């Protein structure tokens, strides 16, 4: 299978797609406010006419490139291009201020690649066995699993849990609009034939992540030019193999944290980046150097936030449960290419999926080459003014929404989702739970109803299955852990306020 997949990669268009994706990702990721989620959502229409392997390689290249691109503005300007680069900014910017911006960026690049390669190997090892196991899942098991995924997002996704729960429910309700998955009757379509297809994923994604950013920028319009930002001088520097080898334990621990936290739905890459940073500081012989420009302070969060890529793809591809907002967008791209993520993906499209995994590993080579070539150019990209950039994003958002079904209804949906996204982001509500609720809502309803219909409404169907029972037990454990963490935090907070 791996060899067949490698043969499928021997196509010049796969290489072109990887390079275009990485370069686009680095440039977009470097611009503060434009994350990988928006970049991938806007580029999906470009992949419509492409075969699946180059199409997904391009989008994953954007993801890889954007995560590194995010560290460019974090290191040079102390303005993280992506939220996950915030940890990188702590030591990276301290290095940049003393002229070592080039060294910090090289360390970030090599650590990113190390994290990515590690997580891809874990992805290759774990995804198929997980998918094979899921082939034995019936409706009760799937319902328990999806409920678990949604609950984990609420409990551990960060932020206020009630807000996250409300967003999940809003997403689930948005998924209800359209035809009922079992009886086929229209629901909340208000007699509109066009709405019977429901709210399509891509227009909603483009609205939530691209259009809402335009509205936010309009709302917060500032007169100051981004070009006025002071970029520290980049002195010539080198990072040798031995420098990275000295950090091997940090890179390994950070990659492990990134990969395994990435597997959990809804947590994203910011939490593992800070976890790895804290662990690297705790393990360091010179912890006082952290915060003042330590090499490991840059390497640890970068390895972790890139390792999340492979980790988050494991439940996305094997079970159809996205790990975060970016993998939710990638899941949408897989579906548009006819590769429906879930237990049957590896059975029906094994060669394509393994080719994509291998492309993800091999694209580390162009990532290093173009990362080194582009970081000096990306410095100028940071200076692009929002008033020049956001009109372009608006045009691309209109095109992206229209191109899914060649329908203006989808553009209206995108506009509505954009305004709702703006309102929610302006109020501080998290959007990833809404998106994952939208994706998992319909399969959750289908599984719950199928399970209850086959058992004539008897809840024993959940208790009689060992798998479902294990997942329910795991859900209960997560609730207990979450409550314990809250109690511990409250006690610590009270303790510190007493002092």
């Amino acid at each position: 299978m791996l060899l067949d997949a490698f043969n499928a990669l021997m196509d010049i268009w796969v290489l072109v797609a990887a390079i275009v994706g990485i370069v686009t990702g680095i440039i977009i990721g470097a611009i503060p406010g434009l994350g990988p989620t928006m970049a991938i959502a806007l580029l999906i229409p470009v992949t419509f006419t492409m075969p699946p392997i180059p199409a997904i390689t391009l989008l994953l290249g954007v993801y890889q490139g954007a995560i590194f691109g995010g560290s460019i503005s974090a290191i040079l300007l102390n303005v993280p291009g992506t939220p996950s680069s915030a940890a990188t900014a702590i030591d990276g910017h301290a290095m940049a201020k003393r002229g070592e911006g080039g060294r910090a960026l090289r360390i970030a690049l090599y650590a990113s690649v190390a994290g990515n390669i590690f997580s891809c190997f874990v992805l290759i090892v774990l995804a198929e066995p997980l998918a094979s196991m899921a082939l034995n899942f019936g409706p009760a098991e799937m319902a328990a699993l999806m409920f678990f995924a949604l609950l984990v997002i609420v409990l551990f996704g960060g932020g206020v849990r009630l807000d996250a729960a409300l967003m999940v429910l809003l997403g689930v309700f948005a998924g209800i609009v359209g035809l009922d998955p079992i009886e086929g009757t229209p629901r909340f379509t208000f007699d509109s034939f066009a709405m019977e297809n429901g709210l399509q994923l891509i227009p909603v994604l483009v609205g939530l992540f691209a259009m809402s950013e335009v509205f936010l920028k309009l709302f917060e319009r500032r007169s100051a030019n981004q070009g006025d930002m002071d970029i520290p001088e980049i002195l010539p520097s080198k990072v040798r193999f031995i420098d990275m080898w000295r950090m091997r334990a940090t890179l390994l621990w950070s990659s492990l944290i990134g990969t395994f936290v990435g597997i959990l739905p809804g947590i994203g890459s910011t939490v593992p980046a800070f976890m790895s940073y804290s662990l690297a500081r705790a393990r360091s012989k010179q912890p006082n150097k952290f915060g003042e420009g330590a090499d490991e302070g840059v390497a640890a969060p970068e390895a972790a936030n890139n390792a999340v890529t492979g980790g988050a793809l494991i439940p996305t591809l094997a079970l159809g449960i996205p790990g975060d907002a970016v993998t939710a967008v990638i899941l949408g791209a897989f579906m548009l290419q006819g590769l429906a993520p879930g237990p049957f993906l590896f059975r029906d499209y094994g060669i394509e999926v393994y080719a994509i995994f291998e492309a993800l590993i091999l694209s580390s080579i162009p990532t290093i080459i173009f990362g080194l070539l582009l970081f000096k150019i990306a410095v100028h990209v940071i200076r692009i003014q929002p008033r020049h950039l956001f009109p372009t994003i608006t045009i691309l958002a209109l095109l992206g929404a229209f191109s899914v079904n060649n329908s203006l209804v989808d553009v209206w949906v995108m506009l509505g989702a954009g305004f709702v996204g703006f309102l929610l982001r302006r109020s501080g509500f998290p959007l990833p739970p809404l998106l994952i609720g939208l994706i998992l809502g319909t399969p959750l309803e289908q599984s719950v109803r199928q399970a209850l219909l086959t058992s004539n409404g008897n809840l024993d169907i959940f208790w009689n299955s060992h798998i479902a029972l294990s997942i329910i037990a795991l859900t209960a454990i997560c609730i207990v852990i979450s409550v314990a963490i809250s109690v511990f935090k409250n006690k610590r907070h009270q303790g510190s306020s007493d002092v």
Partner: protein
Amino acid sequence: MNLSISKLLAKSGLQSLIFLILAVFAGLGLCLLDTQVQVFSFGDSLFDARFFPRIVLVLIIVIALLCCIARTRKMDEPIGSLAGWARVFLVVGMISIALWFMPSVGFLLSSFVVASVTAFILGERDIKLYVGLPLLIAALVTFGAQYGLTIPLP
């Protein structure tokens, strides 16, 4: 009593408004459930097409109210400047008009107008950059989509 209500109103802002809107819409959804979701009863089933929406809508109401109660201890996000809201509504209105006329005037002209207005509202005052640049990008995107990606744009 009056004092506590006025304190609550003083703390209220955008989040409280959103909780309220969600609760009201979920309530409306529950009222409209019977008319908006048809059920053909071939043998009475509790788990029909209304089963899941009903649970979700009730949960939205309950959690929105819980959020409202939890927020009373904290200060809300302020609604923000009127000028900011006016800029957003202006662009939303402009996009709506452009979408309305898109089938007759085409994607190129509609997207150019939207982008140009967005650039102007974002503070661009150089005519080359708020007319020329959006026109160039709209043309590139339109022709690229039509001839490169074979998307049949209006």
